């Protein structure tokens, strides 16, 4: 593709070819001679004391080189960090292997290292663990009560590991003067992200100087390096972490896991490479779950339908331990509950609670899908209760574009104060209504009813925090042939961020994009970085890289001035060349060659080489917004649900690559749809998981996608980003959960059913709701 303005155009991805040809290198594709294979023995009990572990049979099995239990490593490996948690709750941090007791089915109890993965698995089955069962608590309300059935961490004296509070205006006074209070308790069920590539690690100690190279399927290799150094007492310089091709993450790979630590520890201890590839059934118990919360929401409404105050009391079921990002779901959902609506008075208490389930952390949207669900169903309930049009009610309460920037008075842990930067929420709603054919919905409803179907249409208006996280790094280096290498601290895993960043750099230097290559995901190549999560890769990583390119361009002009015998002020940059007033020019390649170390240092420069770095710190989060509208039909006889139409208008500020953004939006909708219609992690009463494979935990297939799916976009550049960019990765999933649930609520409202959950709205659950009309929530 030729030089020219590329930002805003659908440049095909550079990432594709290797992936299409089967030439990519995921962790499981890397083979190193003499590798040992690690098998993890996982707890079969939800809550139990480990009375003893007999490793003799496992240790004597064919090919086994070592068996390790929690007692063996309790001194060598510190608990895994939780970076958003402070205070007494830190006692709930996870250990690489259970010490003394187990708190959920799937918790690592021992590790077996053998010459072959089958030998390791065979030996793992021979480990004898004696358990003494303890009472189990799975329900977060029971766990948080004053008299819980059991305590997971006795020294904490409670199962509540953290409480975050928000207070804006005077919610109590507004309640005292309330015209009407609309109150509901919303339940959001447990899901798991399920990237198609499970997790995997390979730790190699056979490189130089006793350093360990860890290949890990991770979203944040630099943080993994820091965490490993911390828990193992190693110098960061003795570690190199590489995220090779990574097959999706969606949040579960921006967690730090026991297997990463165990592989590095074993590689150091045993002197051989150590490999572990997560089996899919392990993924269901060993990779962080997501979403599960209960929110008690009270809204004060005046006689005009203006919501003057809200109060939130929420619980997050964090499972058995504090994950790396443990408080973030509770924090985001409480800070962002009010979404695009003014609601001047607000108070919230959000408690994070431990139970005997797999630890829970972030998954695409983090706490946003839950917040949007509660807010939008509350809006629907108010509209019905007061007989106000749903759209009109939303409009009356929305912030106006003129209100921006808008300090919301809340804060998100790690990310900081919530100050909406830009956005036209009412405009977005209006465009979505047009796109969805809102005006003609009654005709389609009548048609559906003639066919015996229940018809529902749902709306979700959302604002989401994006582009958060402290900073990102970017480096740009031009070689003597004029080729440009970009180094980014972002660590993409399917998004196409390398292509997007190449577009930014090609535009900044006004060169052919094919001269740009982007490197990421290797802590030796990119010494400092943060990673890809929180919809930040393009917006922050892209900004850092482009700022570095800008510095390169400025430096190039200084070098060119000398070459052209002009003053820097008389030289301009155009089409990848420096141009003097007399028409003479020098190319980027020539300038880069001139600046190399085997020439005298160019006049006016303090350093050689056309290479610069930028460290972009975020002045504030960028807030993307969207409106999703979902139309569906339910067969009242079978409970079968079909999404007949879906429309979304989204705004993520300045768009680098609309093809990639649309891919993110549609893919996100598919995930939200799966979580609302089928997916649910279930347990029996004793804490045994009932969803252990993709045959019980149903991901959406091509057949489940909406019959029609229309997307459109708006552009409200972020004033907090030098290039106006906001994040685009999570809004699709965030909006879909609420839009679909709102549509189900609309379909079932004539039967007297009040929907206060995000499903999953499976046929049996819908049939139950239809038959028991008036009862709340899904079965």
């Amino acid at each position, binding site marked *: 593709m030729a030089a020219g303005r590329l930002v805003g155009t659908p440049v095909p991805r550079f990432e594709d070819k290797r992936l*299409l040809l089967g030439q990519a290198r995921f962790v499981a594709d890397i083979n190193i001679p003499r590798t040992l294979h690690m098998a993890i023995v996982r707890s079969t009990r939800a809550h139990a004391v480990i009375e003893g572990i007999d490793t003799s049979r496992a240790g004597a099995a064919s090919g086994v080189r070592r068996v390790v239990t929690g007692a063996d490593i309790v001194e060598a490996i510190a608990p895994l960090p939780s970076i958003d948690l402070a205070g007494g709750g830190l006692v709930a941090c996870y250990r690489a292997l259970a010490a003394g007791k187990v708190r959920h089915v799937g918790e690592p109890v021992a590790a077996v290292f053998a010459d072959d993965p089958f030998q390791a698995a*065979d030996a793992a089955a021979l480990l004898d663990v004696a358990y003494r069962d303890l009472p189990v608590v799975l329900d977060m309300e029971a766990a948080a009560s004053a008299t819980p059935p059991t305590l997971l961490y006795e020294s904490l004296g409670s199962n509540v590991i953290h409480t975050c509070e928000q207070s804006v205006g005077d919610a109590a006074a507004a309640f005292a003067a309330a015209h009407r209070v609309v109150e509901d308790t919303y339940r959001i069920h447990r899901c798991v992200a399920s990237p198609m590539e499970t997790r995997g690690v390979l730790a190699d100690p056979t490189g130089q100087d006793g350093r360990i190279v860890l290949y890990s399927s991770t979203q944040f290799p630099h943080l993994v390096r820091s965490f490993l150094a911390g828990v193992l007492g190693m110098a960061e310089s003795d570690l190199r972490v590489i995220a090779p091709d990574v097959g999706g993450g969606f949040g579960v790979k921006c967690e730090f896991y026991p297997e990463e630590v165990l592989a590095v520890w074993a590689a150091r201890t045993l002197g051989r490479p150590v490999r572990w590839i997560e089996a899919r059934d392990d993924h269901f118990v060993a990779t962080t779950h997501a979403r599960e919360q209960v929110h008690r929401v009270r809204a004060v409404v005046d006689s005009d339908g203006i919501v003057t105050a809200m109060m939130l009391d929420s619980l997050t079921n964090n499972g058995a331990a504090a994950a790396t990002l443990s408080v973030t779901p509770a924090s985001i959902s409480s800070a962002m509950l009010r979404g695009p609506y003014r609601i001047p008075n607000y108070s919230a208490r959000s408690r994070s609670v431990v139970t005997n389930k797999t630890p829970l952390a972030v998954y695409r949207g983090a706490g946003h899908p839950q917040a949007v669900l509660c807010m939008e169903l509350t809006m629907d309930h108010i509209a019905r209760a007061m007989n106000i049009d749903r759209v009109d009610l939303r409009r009356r309460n929305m912030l106006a574009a003129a209100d921006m920037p808008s300090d919301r008075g809340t804060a998100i842990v790690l990310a900081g104060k919530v100050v909406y930067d830009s956005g036209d929420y009412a405009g977005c709603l209006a465009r979505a209504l047009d796109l969805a054919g809102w005006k003609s919905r009654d005709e389609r409803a009548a048609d559906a009813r003639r066919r015996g179907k229940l018809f529902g249409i749902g709306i979700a208006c959302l604002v989401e925090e994006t582009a958060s996280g402290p900073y990102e790094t970017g480096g740009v280096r031009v070689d003597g042939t004029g080729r440009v290498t970009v180094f980014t601290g972002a660590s993409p895993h399917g998004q196409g961020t390398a292509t997007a960043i190449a577009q930014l750099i090609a535009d900044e230097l006004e060169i052919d994009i094919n001269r740009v290559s982007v490197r990421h995901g290797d802590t030796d190549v990119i010494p400092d970085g943060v990673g890809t999560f929180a919809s930040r890769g393009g917006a922050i990583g892209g900004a850092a890289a482009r700022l570095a390119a800008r510095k390169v361009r400025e430096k190039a002009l200084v070098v060119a001035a000398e070459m052209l015998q002009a003053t820097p002020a008389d030289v301009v940059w155009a089409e990848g060349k420096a141009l003097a007033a007399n028409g003479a020019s020098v190319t980027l390649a020539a300038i880069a060659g001139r600046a190399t170390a085997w020439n005298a240092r160019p006049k006016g420069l303090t350093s050689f080489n056309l290479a610069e770095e930028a460290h972009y710190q975020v002045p504030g989060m960028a807030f993307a917004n969207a409106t999703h509208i979902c139309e569906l039909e339910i067969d009242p006889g079978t409970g079968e649900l079909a999404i007949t139409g879906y429309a979304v208008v989204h705004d993520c500020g300045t768009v680098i690559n609309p093809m990639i953004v649309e891919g993110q939006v549609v893919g996100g909708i598919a995930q939200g749809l799966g979580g609302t219609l089928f997916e649910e992690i279930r347990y029996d009463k004793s804490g045994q998981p009932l969803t252990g494979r993709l045959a019980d935990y149903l991901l959406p297939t091509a057949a489940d*996608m909406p019959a029609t799916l229309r997307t459109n976009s708006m552009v409200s550049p972020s004033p907090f980003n030098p290039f106006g960019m906001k994040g685009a990765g999570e809004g699709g999933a965030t909006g879909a959960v609420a839009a679909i649930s709102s549509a189900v609520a609309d379909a079932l409202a004539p039967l007297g059913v009040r929907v206060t959950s995000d499903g999953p709205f499976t046929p049996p659950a819908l049939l139950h709701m239809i038959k028991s009309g008036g009862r709340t929530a899904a079965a």
Partner: protein
Amino acid sequence: MTIPAEKSHFISVTVNGERAILHVSPRRLLADLLRDDLGLTGTHVGCGTGECGSCTVIIDGETVRSCLTLAVQADGATIETIESVGSSGRLHPVQRAFHTHHALQCGFCTPGIIISAVALFRKNTRPADAEIAEVLQGHLCRCTGYRNMIDALRSIAHAEDR
């Protein structure tokens, strides 16, 4: 429980046009044979239980889940993997369509889907939408939402000059 001694078997397979004779244990999976013994790591294992379709290969003209196939079952068979489809200089039409329609993101599931689509177009150069849908329903993708895949495959089925 004792681990039974394994009796190994010699098998002969033709993979991507090259014949190989291999010594395999009875429980060795075809997916592992392809990936670990032959180094053909383009075939991915996403679930190991036949649900996701990432490991799909063509055996004697039919698409098969290589994670559910024992290596010994493939004795004498002709196997095609993603490595035999297209080349860097000349992508297969299915690969080209996936690229232009942005029908892949992380790309982990992609080789299996490409293999199934290649097999579909061999049997029917102009498959109906329902046939395309049926093939895609045998695969899980967590990134794309499938829409662009459907468009990519339709674009081939509806192309004027194939």
